[in-house]
């Protein structure tokens, strides 16, 4: 799939079968992707700590490394060396698998993201569908975590999460239809390519609906009900500690990063920016981190909704708005 002719020649010269070559390339890409995720999470967490500290008249981490920049490594080492605790009545396999099932889909979303002109691992025709569908599998991991850990807080948290994520999938997907209509494609690189004017200007309603439902998707404030520490202690991952906890933590930040990159691709013109084309990834990164900053700004300012209010907002406000947006887009396109 990824093998170019040169590589194929090379393989046949040395008698390496094609499947092995494909496998090796896939592994290389997986490792690269994982490294990108890991680095993004490290930067994200550091930023989160520093930004939230700024909002709260604090310094944030200061002692490990320059301005606390190595704090996360210290934390990671601490979590990795901690005892692996199972609750006595936990369903062991479900409990064990849940962090992986949550993490992997969040990470797979990056496969189709174009970070620069032609820089994309797998440019799928249905990239948009893929990137909406795959990360949604993560909710299964959250339900597994709640179900497997034999804890009432965890099960309530995971059910809340499931209800919330499934509800907000609908307006989120509908809000993007306007973009697909304008761009005429569900391929992410074509969507970015078609953005001579950023879609945030052409599709302002869609942007608002998409941003709000994205916040709900990644369980960020004001929709952080699955892990409300004031009600449910820690929600679905109450019983997790050490490395497994780290996986949830990791998944959460990968999801945040993925949400910011997707918003950049769909609404903020992706790699477009002044200057030559090879600066694309840099523009992309700047826009992504601006988006992350906006999400954190919201996170550290607002209180959270109650569960019924969250459902009301999703079904009674955002869904009609998304549908109206499709209607307006259609009408405007018909007239022009």
């Amino acid at each position, binding site marked *: 799939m990824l093998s170019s002719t040169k590589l194929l020649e090379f393989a046949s010269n040395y008698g390496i079968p094609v499947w092995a070559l494909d496998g090796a390339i896939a592994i290389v890409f997986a490792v690269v992707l994982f490294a990108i995720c890991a680095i993004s999470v490290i930067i994200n967490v550091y930023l989160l700590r520093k930004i939230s500290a700024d909002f*709260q*008249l604090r310094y944030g981490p200061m002692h490990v490394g320059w301005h606390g920049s190595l704090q996360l490594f210290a934390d990671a080492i601490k979590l990795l060396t901690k005892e692996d605790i199972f609750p006595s009545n936990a369903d062991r396999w479900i409990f064990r698998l849940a962090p992986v099932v949550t993490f992997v889909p969040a990470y797979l979303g990056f496969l189709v993201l174009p970070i620069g002109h032609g820089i994309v691992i797998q440019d799928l025709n249905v990239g948009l569908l893929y990137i909406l569908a795959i990360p949604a599998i993560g909710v299964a991991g959250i339900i597994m975590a709640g179900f497997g850990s034999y804890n*009432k807080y965890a099960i309530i948290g995971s059910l809340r999460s499931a209800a919330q994520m499934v509800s907000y999938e609908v307006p989120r997907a509908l809000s993007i239809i306007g973009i697909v209509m304008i761009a005429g494609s569900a391929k992410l690189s074509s969507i970015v390519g078609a953005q001579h004017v950023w879609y945030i200007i052409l599709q302002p309603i869609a942007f608002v609906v998409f941003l709000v439902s994205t916040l709900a998707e990644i369980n960020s404030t004001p929709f952080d009900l699955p892990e409300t520490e*004031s009600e449910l*202690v820690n929600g679905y991952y109450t019983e997790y500690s050490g490395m497994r906890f780290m996986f949830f933590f990791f998944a959460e930040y990968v999801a945040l990063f993925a949400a910011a990159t997707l918003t950049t691709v769909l609404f903020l013109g992706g790699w477009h920016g002044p200057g030559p084309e090879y600066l694309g990834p840099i523009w992309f990164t700047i826009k992504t981190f601006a988006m992350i900053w906006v999400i954190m700004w919201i996170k*550290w300012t607002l*209180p*959270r*909704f*109650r569960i019924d209010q969250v459902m009301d907002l999703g079904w009674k406000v955002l869904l009609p708005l998304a549908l109206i947006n499709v209607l307006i887009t259609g009408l405007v396109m018909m007239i022009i």
Partner: protein
Amino acid sequence: MGLIKMSKLEEMKISNHNLSELEKDLALNGEVESTEDIVTEELAIHFGPQHPSAHGVFHAIFHVKGEVVTKIEPDIGYLHRCFEKIAENRTYTQFIPYTDRMDYVASMTNNWAYCMAVEKLAGIEVPERAEHIRVIVGELQRIASHLVFLSTAGSEAGALTPFVYFFDEREGILTLYEKICGARLTYNYIRIGGVRADAPEGWLDDTLAFVTRLKKRMYDYDRLVLGNYIFKKRFIGVAPFSAEQALDWGLTGPPLRSTGVSYDVRRSDPYSVYPRLEFDVVVKYKGDNYDRACIRSDEIKQSIRIIEQAIEQIPEGPVKADGIAKVFKPAAGEGYGHVESPKGDLGFYVVSDGTTKPYRVKIQGPSFGNLQALPAMSEGTYIGDVVLTLGTLDPVFGEVDR
């Protein structure tokens, strides 16, 4: 369990099977309750004693149906330290530090109420300057306690940033306290017959500067927390209480005044120099969570008014009544002193048998009375609301359990 059964039931319904058999089967299991076509199971959740928003060591069992709490069984006593009994084995002065540990968010008013009871028992006159200083520190304490309330109300609703702002303001009050009595949490400052020491030089000016700054900032804080759209959506109309209910349950303080009852010990049974000071008793009428929250923000503004007047009026003179030894023997009798603490009507009833130690001390803590109403207020609301309702009652468990 419940979920699996529910889906089974639905499946059968779709395939047009006879439901009655399955329902009978479910009814045999005592836990399962059938309402029309949804079968659910009640879940008992332990809230506390180690819970992030249990306000200390509150333990309650929530019976929940989905997200709705149907029944609350409060369970207190985790912080019980036998203060009333200890009082019988300490001299009158020695008991003052123990009162600090009751409502540890507002220690100063505890000192004050106890000393007032003993002063009434022994017939001690407190000098004017001491009374003014008491009013100033007492009102500062009210501001500090209400700031803690506003910050926790925000953080319980999920807004963690206002929490830090309010604690930063409270820090200013703690610094003032540190200057006047050396302690930041347990002051032991108010003594029988006055206060321990006069305010240090410049302290009154510092206090005035602090309240003037706070008065300006309260406008922003009100908009940050109480004016926030989501905050209003969470608080307005939740867990309302009527005036009759509030009186029946024995609420005092802000939760009572939020229902329209204008009861404030500073006005109803005036003490110290309050009759000479101008301030309004803040009253709200809906009695819901939002009113209980707003009333505290408004009381901060009234306290600022009181402090400004007290600083203006404070006379020179001694700060402690003459001739009170550390150990003294009041004549046999009884004294009851109560003050409007930030949490409500805090009363001490002290009985003397003529020895150096009290015969009996009975403490009436407002947090205890207010906490009682939690089940009545919040049964039938959502889990998230119960946490907020507990927050707006603002109990401190050092005082509930004593």
